[in-house]
């Protein structure tokens, strides 16, 4: 391999270090120290940078070009072969205790420009400022686990203050790093283009070109003006108390219904899945009632629940209940029977199996069900409010139409969408919190 090497001019190359995961949060003076011990080299396409078993001395950062990095099978990486590009760091075997030898084969796919840092010297610089050193090593740990998928090796990373272990994969680090990558990608701009197209079309179609059917619709400027005005023409804006009253009303109803549906639906679903007898007795009746659309219940609900408020909550509850119970049941049924068998082998009683295997095992499905259930609640609530409610966002949309307050219709719709999204996200976050094990498993195993 022909390498043309020259010393790194510190300030020139600092931004390259800042693009990499391990060095992203290091201060400039520290970076200069590191840069002073690195040098640049260029390689042709096809050049072999190192092979498995070679002495591991340097760490590599790609400035430009592509490198194929293939970990040897004994390392048991989930994704042994990676294609690395600018900003990627490899050659970290130089930082491991037991492996002064290379674990992978690195070949240039295109002509590349690389920054090489001697591992020992890097460690010495990091030791001179141990706090930063710890951070850098933990970021190496995250990178090795997440991108190279070899979590077993991070126990061998040379520690600065202390040994690294898998608890050091810091979620926040990872989140911020991924966010910085996302911000640099085209994705946010495409998103803006999408919204611009949509809103632009709305504006033009209604207010500028005045297309045939669009003429009657409320225009985007009217809606925005109304929504944010201190003295709205039609009485509802973010400055009026009434607006929040309606939101609160709808949210309160959904909360009640959702709560009831969860408290009744989850245990019901768990038993349906766990006990065949229970299912044989109760599932047929359940399945008979389920296909009846929620709104078909409206008249009956009005008859059964003398107060309209209860009728509305009942309808919202129904939809939610069916979704929750069904998904919970499916969750229990999809638990691999090896788990229950293993538990009974190990001495667990039937009740212990239920508590330690069935309930946690079904939890992911339960939460998916709960998310669906929240969405379904909003669906039913709006319909119920439109038909027979007082107050609430569905009611607002309905009456705004009859009273010819068109901009308020749109305000109602947008508010509905936002509130619905927030409630759904809250359920999802609750699920993530309760199932840490799944979040970590997914993070390490995602494609």
């Amino acid at each position: 391999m022909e390498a043309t090497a020259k010393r790194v001019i510190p300030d020139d190359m600092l931004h390259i270090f800042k693009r990499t995961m391990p060095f992203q949060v290091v201060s400039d003076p520290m970076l200069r120290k590191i840069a002073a011990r690195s040098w640049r080299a260029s390689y042709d396409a096809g050049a072999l940078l190192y092979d498995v078993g070679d002495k591991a001395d340097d760490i590599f950062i790609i400035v430009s070009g592509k490198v194929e990095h293939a970990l040897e099978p004994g390392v048991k990486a989930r994704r042994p072969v990676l294609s690395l590009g600018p900003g990627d760091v490899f050659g970290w075997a130089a930082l491991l205790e037991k492996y002064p030898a290379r674990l992978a084969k690195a070949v240039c796919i295109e002509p590349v420009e690389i920054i090489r840092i001697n591992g020992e010297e890097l460690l010495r610089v990091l030791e001179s400022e141990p706090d930063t050193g710890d951070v850098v090593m933990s970021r190496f740990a995250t990178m090795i686990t997440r991108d190279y998928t070899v979590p077993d090796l991070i126990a061998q990373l040379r520690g600065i203050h202390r040994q690294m272990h898998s608890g050091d994969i810091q979620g926040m680090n990872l989140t911020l790093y991924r966010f910085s990558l996302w911000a640099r990608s085209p994705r946010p701009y495409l998103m803006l283009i999408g919204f611009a197209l949509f809103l632009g079309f709305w504006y033009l179609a209604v207010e500028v070109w005045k297309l045939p059917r669009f003429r009657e619709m409320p225009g985007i400027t009217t809606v925005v003006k109304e929504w944010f005005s201190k003295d709205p023409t039609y009485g509802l804006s973010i400055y009026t108390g009434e607006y929040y009253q309606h939101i609160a009303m709808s949210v309160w109803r959904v909360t009640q219904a959702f709560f009831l549906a969860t408290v009744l639906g989850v245990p019901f679903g768990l038993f349906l899945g766990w006990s065949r007898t229970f299912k044989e007795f109760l599932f047929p009746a359940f399945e008979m009632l389920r296909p009846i659309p929620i709104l078909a219940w409206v008249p009956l609900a009005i008859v059964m629940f003398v107060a309209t408020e209860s009728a509305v909550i009942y309808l919202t509850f129904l939809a939610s209940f069916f979704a929750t119970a069904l998904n919970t049941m499916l969750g229990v049924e999809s638990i691999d029977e090896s788990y229950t068998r293993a538990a009974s082998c190990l001495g667990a009683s039937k009740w212990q199996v239920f508590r330690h295997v069935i309930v946690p095992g079904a939890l992911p499905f339960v939460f998916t069900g709960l998310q669906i259930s929240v969405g379904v609640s909003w669906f039913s609530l709006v319909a119920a409010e439109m038909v027979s409610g007082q107050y609430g966002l569905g009611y607002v949309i309905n009456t705004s139409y009859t009273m010819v307050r068109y901009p308020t219709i749109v305000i109602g719709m947008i508010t509905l969408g936002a509130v619905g999204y927030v409630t759904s996200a809250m359920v999802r976050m609750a699920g993530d919190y309760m199932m840490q094990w799944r979040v970590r498993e997914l993070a390490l195993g995602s494609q």
Partner: protein
Amino acid sequence: MAAQKFNTTSLARGLVSILLFLVLWEIGSRSKHWLGADIFGPLREALGAMGFKKTYIPWIGAVPAPTEVLRAWVDVIGDAGYWHSWYMSSFRVAAGFVAAMLIGIPFGLMLAVNRTAFGIGFPVFEVLRPIPPLAWVPASIIFWPTQEMSIAFVTFLGAFYTIVINVVGGARSIDGRYFQAAQSMGSSRWDIFRRIILPGTLPSIVVGSAVGMGITWEVVVAAEMISGGGSQIGGTSGGGLGFFIWNSYVGGSYEQIVVGMISIGIAGFISSELLRSLGKYVTPWLRLR
């Protein structure tokens, strides 16, 4: 848990449960009491003591009994208007559903296959999705010239979201190795699309349509009730089973309400089964050995 075997005991138990349900219903209705006969009295007292408002407990006594419902049903079977409602609702469901598939599947595939399209289209889609389809009803009525078209649009929306999400999810979850295998055998991009992406997404499309069908029924019934006179919105009758139910309520014949409800349940069940068979026909490779 292994799949349950379908044997005579489970069938018997199922029948018992349905029978029990009907019997309880009958007793509850005939007694004309809160929560049915006085055997529920203590339950009502207990719930009341726990702080539940009386109005939270359904007044089963007001619900017509199964026997009365059956009688009303026998009466209505001879009425042509009843079957016309069946036809109207089924037609709307089919139309809205087909439209959602025709537009949703290509849209979803486009999003899944082209990264730029996804970046532009998906965020807007996701922002609009939490708005319940029924919230679009007034806007739809303003926009579309006829009532039929406004109902159709709302119906379309309901199924559209589900189908697109399922298509996108399905396309993305196709194992990458299929692509690699195809490319190593020299397939063109169009070939890959036709022979890998399309069939690979089919199972998700099938699942998406099953769920979408359920939602479509919900929306159709709701739209029929709302525009048929359920609220102040809407003009003349639109027909359909939703309207049938509402009409029965307004007309005071409660037994017919229940007839209508069960009819819709049956109709929904039939359409789901049709879809499921169609799905099996289209994806024979999923038949388990």
